[in-house]
C-alpha cells in the first residue's frame, strides 16, 4: 500500500514537472508574444509551438486525472480551497487555446486575438503561481464561515511565486525560441533571455530566503545539520546552472540555455518537494492519508507502467518530427 501510494505520488510529481516544463515554454511564448512587435515574427514564434501545444496541455489533464483517482481526498480538499485560482487557470487556458486557433484564421481582428492570447497565457500563469505559493506556505483549513470572508490563497508570497513563474516560463519560452528560430527573432530572444535571467536570480533568492520563514517545518528540514551538506547541493547546482546559462547566452549558444533553464526548474522543483514531503495537502494531509483504495491504485498503476513509457517515447518522437528551425509561419 505504501509502495503504491508512493509510486502514484512520484508519477503525479513527474506529470506535474513535465507539464511545468512543456506547458511552461508554450505559456512563456504566449507571454513573450506581447514583446514581439513584428507580426511576421510573432506568427513564427507561435508556429514553433503550434504542433505541440495540445500534447503539452495533456500532461495537466493527466496530473489532474491521476490526482483525482489516486488521492481523491487531496483533490477534493485542495480544489475547493483554491476555487478562484483553479477556475481562473482553466478558463484562461481554455481562452488561450481558442485564441491560438482563432488568430491563425483571423485577418483584420488578428491584433485583438494577439492581446487575448497574451492575456490568457499570463492569467493562467499568475493563477498557477498563487496555487504554488499556497502549497509552499501550507493550506489553512478554515471552517466554512471564515472561507466566506477571505481567501487563503491571496497573500504576498503567492504573488511573489506568480512573478517568479511568469519570469521562469518566459525564460523557458525565449530559450526555446533561440533553438527554433533564426535572424532577428533569435536575436530578440537572446536579449530577452539575458534580461530575464537576472530577474529570475532575484526571485530565486527571494523565495529561498522567504520560504524557511513561512513555516518552521521548512526551516527545520533545510537547516538540519544532518541533511544540510546533501541539501546544499541543490542551491549550489542552481547557481552553477545559472552561471553556465549566463555564459552560454553570452557565447550565443543555441541549445545550452534551454537545458540550463530546464535544469534550474528541476532543482527548484526538487527543492519544493523536499519542503512539502510527505504532505500532499501541505501541513494537513499526507499522501498516505489521501490515497485511494488499493484496487484503484493497482488498476491505475498497471496502466501507467504500460502506457507512460509509450507516451514518453512518442512525446519525444513528435518533438523529433518537428525538430529544426521554423522560418515560415505554418497554417493548416
Amino acid at each position: 500500500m505504501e509502495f503504491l501510494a508512493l509510486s502514484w505520488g512520484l508519477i503525479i510529481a513527474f506529470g506535474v514537472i513535465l507539464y511545468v516544463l512543456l506547458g511552461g515554454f508554450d505559456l512563456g511564448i504566449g507571454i513573450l508574444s506581447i514583446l514581439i512587435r513584428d507580426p511576421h515574427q510573432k506568427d513564427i514564434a507561435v508556429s514553433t509551438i503550434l504542433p505541440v501545444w495540445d500534447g503539452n496541455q495533456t500532461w495537466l489533464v493527466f496530473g489532474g486525472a491521476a490526482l483525482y483517482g489516486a488521492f481523491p481526498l487531496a483533490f477534493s480538499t485542495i480544489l475547493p480551497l483554491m476555487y478562484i485560482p483553479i477556475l481562473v487557470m482553466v478558463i484562461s487556458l481554455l481562452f488561450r487555446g481558442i485564441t491560438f486557433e482563432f488568430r491563425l484564421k483571423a485577418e483584420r481582428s488578428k491584433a485583438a486575438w494577439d492581446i487575448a492570447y497574451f492575456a490568457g497565457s499570463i492569467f493562467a500563469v499568475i493563477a498557477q503561481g498563487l496555487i504554488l505559493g499556497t502549497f509552499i506556505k501550507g493550506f489553512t483549513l478554515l471552517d466554512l464561515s471564515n472561507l466566506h470572508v477571505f481567501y487563503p490563497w491571496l497573500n504576498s508570497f503567492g504573488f511573489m511565486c506568480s512573478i517568479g513563474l511568469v519570469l521562469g516560463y518566459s525564460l523557458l519560452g525565449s530559450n526555446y525560441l533561440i533553438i527554433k528560430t533564426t535572424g532577428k527573432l533569435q536575436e530578440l530572444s537572446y536579449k530577452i533571455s539575458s534580461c530575464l535571467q537576472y530577474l529570475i536570480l532575484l526571485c530565486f533568492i527571494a523565495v529561498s530566503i522567504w520560504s524557511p520563514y513561512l513555516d518552521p517545518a521548512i526551516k527545520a528540514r533545510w537547516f538540519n545539520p544532518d541533511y544540510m551538506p546533501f541539501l546544499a547541493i541543490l542551491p549550489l547546482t542552481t547557481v552553477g546552472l545559472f552561471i553556465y546559462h549566463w555564459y552560454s547566452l553570452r557565447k550565443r549558444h543555441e541549445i545550452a540555455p534551454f537545458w540550463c533553464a530546464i535544469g534550474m526548474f528541476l532543482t527548484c522543483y526538487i527543492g519544493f518537494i523536499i519542503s512539502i514531503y510527505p504532505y500532499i495537502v501541505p501541513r494537513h494531509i499526507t499522501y498516505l492519508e489521501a490515497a485511494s483504495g488499493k484496487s484503484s491504485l493497482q488498476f491505475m498503476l498497471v496502466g501507467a507502467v504500460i502506457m507512460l513509457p509509450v507516451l514518453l517515447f512518442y512525446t519525444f518522437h513528435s518533438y523529433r518530427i518537428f525538430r529544426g528551425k521554423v522560418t515560415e509561419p505554418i497554417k493548416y
Partner: protein
Amino acid sequence: MILDTALLSRMQFGFTISFHILFPAFSIGLAMFLAIMEGIWLKTQNPVYKSICLFWTKVFALTFGMGVVSGIVMEFQLGTNWAGFTKAIGGVLGPLFTWEVMTAFFIEAGFLGVMLFCWDKVSPRMHYFATLLVVGGTTLSAYWILTANTWMQHPVGFHIVDGIYKVDSWYDIIFNRAGFPRYFHMMLAAYITASFVIASVSGFYLLKGKFTEFAKKCFSFAWLALFILIPTQLFVGDATGLEVHNNQPIKTAAIEGVWDTQAGAPLLLFAIPDQKNQKNLFEIGIPYGASLINTHKLNGVLQGLKTVPPADQPKVAVVFFTFRIMVGIGILMLLLACAAMYLRYKNRLYDTRWFQKASIASAPLGFMALWCGWLTAEIGRQPWIVYNHIRTLDAASDVALRDVMISFGLIIIVYGIVFGVFYFYFLTKTIRHGPGELDEKDPHQPFLYMPSKHDEE
C-alpha cells in the same frame, strides 16, 4: 427556488458540459469520416478525396482544440464544485479518467499533430496510420467517459467503507452491461451529428454551385451514411430504453409520464406533467404504447413515479419533454434521409433545390437531439448524482456562493463570446473559404513547414 451553492454549481456544470459535449461529439464523427475518406483516397488516388480530407481536417482541428480545452474545465470542476462527490467516488471514476488520458487522450493529441501538419513529412500510409490512431483514440476516449457516466447511472462492483467507495471488480465496472447500448447510442449520435454538418456544408456548396465535385461526393456520402445510421440508431435507442427501464424504472416513469404503477401503460404523445399534484394535466396517448416500447410486452408493468416520495423524483416535465424533442428530431431525421434516398433513386439528389436548402437547415439537428438525449439521461437521474446512493445536494463543495457566482459569470462571458460567437464565426469563415479549386497548382502549399534552411534576412 433559493439560489444556493449546489444549485448554482449544477447550473455551471450543466452549462459547461452542454458546450463541451458538442465538440467531442462532432470530432468523433468527423474523425471517422476523415478515416473513410482518406482510405478511399489511398485506394483510388482520386484528388477529390484528398481535398475532402484537407478541408475537413481544418474543421476537425478547430473542433478538437475546443474539445480539449473545454474538457480541462470539466475535469477541474469535479474538484472545485463537487468535492463531496470526488471524495466518495474519486477512487472509482478517477482511474477511469486516468486510463482515458493514458490510452486515448495522449494518442489523439500526439497524432493530431501528424495528421494536421505532416501530409508531406511522412508517407501517405504513415499519415493514414496517424489518422486511424486519432479515430481509435476518440472512440476509446468516448468509451471511458461513457463507462464513468454509466457507473453513475447504474453503480456496480464496489463496497462502501466510511462513506468512501472502494472497488471490488474493475471488470464489472468497465464491462457494465448497462453501458453497451448507451455507448453505441452515443457513438451513432456522434456519427449522425457530423453527417448532418457535412450534408449541410456540401448542400450549401451545391446550392451556390461552388466546389461541385467536392460537394457531390460529401453530399452523397453523408446522406447514404445517414440512411443507414438513423434506422440503426432507432434500434439502439430502443435497447437503451430497455436498459434504462431495467436499472432506473423511475427515470422511465418520468420519460413516459407514468405516475401510478400500471400494466399496459399508454404511450403519451403529449401531456403536461404536474409534479405538485402528481398527475398529468392533459394527455393524448396510444394505448399500451409505453409498455410495449419499454418492456417489449403489451401488458408489461411500468413502475409509477408515486412509488417513491416526491423528494426522490426527477423534474418530470423536463425529462418528459426533452425525451419527446429528441425522438421528434429523430423522426424528422429519418424522413429527411428517406427523402434523400428517394431523390437518389430518381437521380435528382444533386439538383433538387428545396432539398439542398433543407440540408443546410438540418445542420443543428444532430446537436439538438444530442443535447436533449443527454438532458433526459442526466436530469432523469436526479435527485441522485450516483443513482440511489449519493444525492446531488450532498455532493457539492463547501465553497462560497459568491465564488461560484464569479466563476459562473466568467464562464458565461468567456464561453458565450468564444464559443457562441467566434467559434461559429471562424467555422463559417472556413466554410465560406471552402476547399479551394481542385486544379490549384500546389495543394501542399499551406503545409509548408520548416523548408530548407535559409536565413530570414
